[in-house]
């Protein structure tokens, strides 16, 4: 049995530190996801009207986000805006801003898709029955749209958690950075720590994302 460097995990507070690092990453993605879901619903409903200003804004916003890698957007925010406007932005704040901008556009697109996929005849029928626009949304559109949306937005959150791993390249001390520190500190005592520690990071990410993607898959099947 080769030395897999797993013993490092049980030394001192190493395992707890890794979990703490995971929490830093999860916190960034959960804050961004929260902002994205709220702002995305508002923008998406506004953009579901054809030929509205918000639908044009959303389309341009989406095409920027679809073409540029997340890493480039992070760089633009972290190095670019600090240079251009002279403010000080922590890596964590830059990440939350970029992920929220990205998530809002994606979420808005999902909401727009879900709202417009409901046949126009439904809206027209209840309009004829005398319901006001607010009531139409409350009783007819939202209940149907939400069912389509929930699995899709869970997938978006899973993607966001995975993308958050990039913030280590902006110098944020999250799980990968903590892993590096642990490996560095134990270089002498356990030279094979890189295997065990990175494997643990791998498994931790899997355990964080797997329940979400499983839930999304299940709901998608159930509500189809």
């Amino acid at each position, binding site marked *: 049995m080769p030395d897999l460097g797993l013993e490092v995990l049980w030394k001192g507070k190493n395992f707890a530190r890794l979990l703490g690092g995971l929490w830093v990453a999860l916190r960034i993605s959960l804050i961004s996801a929260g902002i994205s879901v709220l702002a995305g619903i508002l923008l998406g409903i506004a953009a579901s009207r054809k030929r509205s200003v918000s639908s044009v804004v959303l389309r341009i916003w989406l095409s920027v986000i679809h073409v540029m890698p997340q890493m480039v957007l992070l760089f633009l925010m972290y190095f670019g805006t600090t240079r251009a406007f002279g403010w000080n932005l922590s890596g964590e704040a830059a990440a939350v801003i970029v992920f929220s901008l990205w998530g809002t556009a994606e979420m808005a697109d999902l909401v727009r898709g879900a709202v417009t996929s409901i046949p126009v005849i439904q809206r027209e029928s209840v309009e004829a029955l005398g319901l006001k626009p607010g009531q139409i949304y409350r009783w007819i559109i939202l209940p149907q749209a939400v069912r389509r949306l929930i699995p899709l937005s869970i997938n978006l959150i899973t993607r966001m958690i995975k993308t958050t791993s990039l913030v280590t390249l902006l110098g944020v001390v999250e799980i990968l950075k903590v892993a590096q520190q642990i490996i560095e500190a134990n270089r002498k005592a356990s030279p094979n720590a890189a295997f065990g520690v*990175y494997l643990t990071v791998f498994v931790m990410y899997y355990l964080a994302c*797997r329940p979400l993607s499983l839930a999304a898959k299940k709901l998608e099947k159930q509500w189809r």
Partner: protein
Amino acid sequence: MEWDYIEKVLPLYGKAAWLTLRTGTAGILLAALTGLLCAAALHWRVPVLRWITSAYVEISRNTPLLVQLFFIYYGLPKIGIRTDPETCGIAGLAFLGGSYMTEAFRSGVEAVDRIQEESALSLGLTRLQAFLHVIFPQAAAISAPAFMANVIFLMKETSVFSAVSLMDLMFTAKDQIGLYYRTTESLFLLVSAYLLILLPLSLLGSLLERRLRHAGFGT
């Protein structure tokens, strides 16, 4: 913005863009191959292989590429599997992309009605003929948009390769910012280079999607 400086470092970015393009293409091709094999294993319900495939898809889809790369580049050498940065990048991209490609191909094959294969078989075609002449053309048309979306997604994912010390576009830009504080010029070059690579792909994707929309045979 100083154009003299831009002119001076342009070859550097050209080299980096070429590296991104080269490793990206190699990784995507390997991912497509992996996807085809996995989709075949799932479609024909090959015993054992299909369990391995499902497990692989789950693991690959639920972990970030950066973590996969760190494990391949820094972790695996400890048990004797050593890779140079470029091989590591390509392998990582193939590992991540394989599962996305599997899903794209599998959904295409599944969208073709079972009765088509049965009809083809009853007309006397062999299983292979039925697949090649009846199932595959339709499945390919259905899979194409998802396939293109994956290609673009994977090309964008190459932007984390700098983490395993590949001198790609991100690496070059960060290096230049750190060395000479040329933030504006570096970011301008970075965005331009990625636009040059990704915009044609993205346009090709939407073109393909529009043309293949007519190819849904009774679906």
